[in-house]
């Protein structure tokens, strides 16, 4: 109905992914922050993962729009 759900999903994960990637990058040398996560920069990795997923969703929505021009 009406809107293609891939667009909001894609946009949201792109924005959240960017936010966490940047935050993870800035805090990359903050060892105290990442002691809980066993020394892994989870913000950076989660952020990158979400960014890829968000962009993939956006790409799919563009593809399905091209297939069904209305």
């Amino acid at each position: 109905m009406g809107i293609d759900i891939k667009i909001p999903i894609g946009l949201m994960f792109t924005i959240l992914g960017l936010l966490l990637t940047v935050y993870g990058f800035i805090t990359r040398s903050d060892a105290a922050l990442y002691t809980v996560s066993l020394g892994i920069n989870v913000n950076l990795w989660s952020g990158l993962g979400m960014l890829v997923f968000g962009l993939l969703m956006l790409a799919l929505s563009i593809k399905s729009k091209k297939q069904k021009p209305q």
Partner: protein
Amino acid sequence: MNSGFILSWIDYSVMIIYFAFVLGIGWALKRYMKDASAFLEAGRSMPAWVAGLAFISTNLGALEVMGMTGSGVKYGMLTTHFYWVGAIPAMVFLAMFMMPFYYGSKARSVPEYLKLRFDEKTRGLNAILFAVMTILASGISMYALAILMEKVLGWNFHLSLILSAAIVLAYTYLGGLSSAIYNEVLQFFIIVVGLLPIVILSLKDVGGWHGLQQSLAPIVSSKGFAPDTWTTTWKYTGSAAANPMGVEWYGIFVGLGFVLSFGYWCTNFLIVQRAMSAHSTTAARNTPLIGAIPKMFIPFLIIVPGIVALVLMNTPGKGFTLPLNAAGQPIYDYTIIMLLKQYLPAGVLGLGITALLASFMSGMAGNVSAFNTVWTYDIYQSYIRPATNNKAIDDKHYLFVGRMATIFGVLVSIAAAYLASLFGNIMDFLQTIFSMVNAPLFAVIFLGMFWKRGTGHAAFAGLLAGLLVALLHHGLTFPAGADTLVKGGWITHLHAYPVEMAQSFWTAIFACSTSTLVTVVVSFLTTQKKSDQELTGLVYSLTPKLNEEAVPWYKRSSTLAIVVLTLVTILTILFW
């Protein structure tokens, strides 16, 4: 008690972005809500993958996430029985054998199917029970959400309650079922993304799956079970005493795998409504099948971290403890939250908490969107203001009623949440009772779909009898160590079950059998008032077989069903 979560600006930013999208989706859908069908049935326009993810997401409420992680601590991989044997077969059955009738009959709800197949009183009984049950469930989940926010985040109970209700009301009022479904899809992805870091980090912490098995062995042995009980599923179900669930394999197979799961997945309108919103019969059949694929992998997301938590609790150096309740017992339902705290730094922590909040709200929205449909079509349109000849006026009128029912549903949920905070036990009791409604309902709908002789009087009698037997069984038996009458035994103590789960399995088995028996016997004693022609599209033997030849083989329901069943068999063997 404040569990000492300190959220930073980055966590709040994640939360705010998520809720901005939730409300934005409702807002974007507003202009499509032109009539009652668009609002209450999503205009029957959903692609199968959207309906399928919503289908699974409705069930993945926060109470489920929290409860299943807690069960991971208590029962280990045995908890997967709620997924692999306790959900997948029922979902495949719904897709292959029941969806063609639900969808093809053009019924707009499960109660309406009962009206078409049987009679008005059967619909009425089911509609009213469903409406009350749904609102109560919504209230209980709101209460749990507010308590969680109070304890974990230190937010005000009343403010949390009103704020979350307001958000749910806003997006369901604006965009109806479509909005609820779209947000369920969004929620599905945020839960996966939000909880995945915990799975990876917790497993890494204990040295992977192999390390987990090794660390578990001494802990489990000291409880008196075989060392690998927590990491296997069927191996120790030969006798009830050998596994922590206290149920034998046939109890699991019949109680959980058949009666409870078929009762839940095949008759609960909250669930079936998602599949009914699909754009075609094939899409409607594929909805539960597409949902089944993520469903069978959810245990790794929510049960496995619970198993790791058991190791953490028994490893002093880890500093992991569960909060205690008034009786000094650990609150297992808080396992997932304590794991968030254990492993996640600012940033992904906000994501994890957003995932929990999201699952609470979508559970609530699911209840509200099912309630307003049943209220508008099955109660209001049937008993208060029937449809007139003027379709244009009707459409507007029922859209208005649907919207009012949304507001009313949310308000009553808030009231129910406050009731739950005052009389928690009574609410638990009601929820237990209502969970018994599904098993007899499955018996009646199953007979309705596959036996054309089944009559209206019989269905009504079967439903009532099943419900009464469930009540009676609950009143006569109790789980060992029960301290309140809510758990059963409020008539007399006739039989004690080792654990609560065994009691609920057997309640469902008795209720379902009684219902079947009564429906069959009364059907033979009464005459079938519906002609074969009236029953076409509602009963298996009178409906032309579906022809899937026009659909490419890889999109056919039968192909998908085989894929789903193969996958679940492989998982079962891997974790036998």
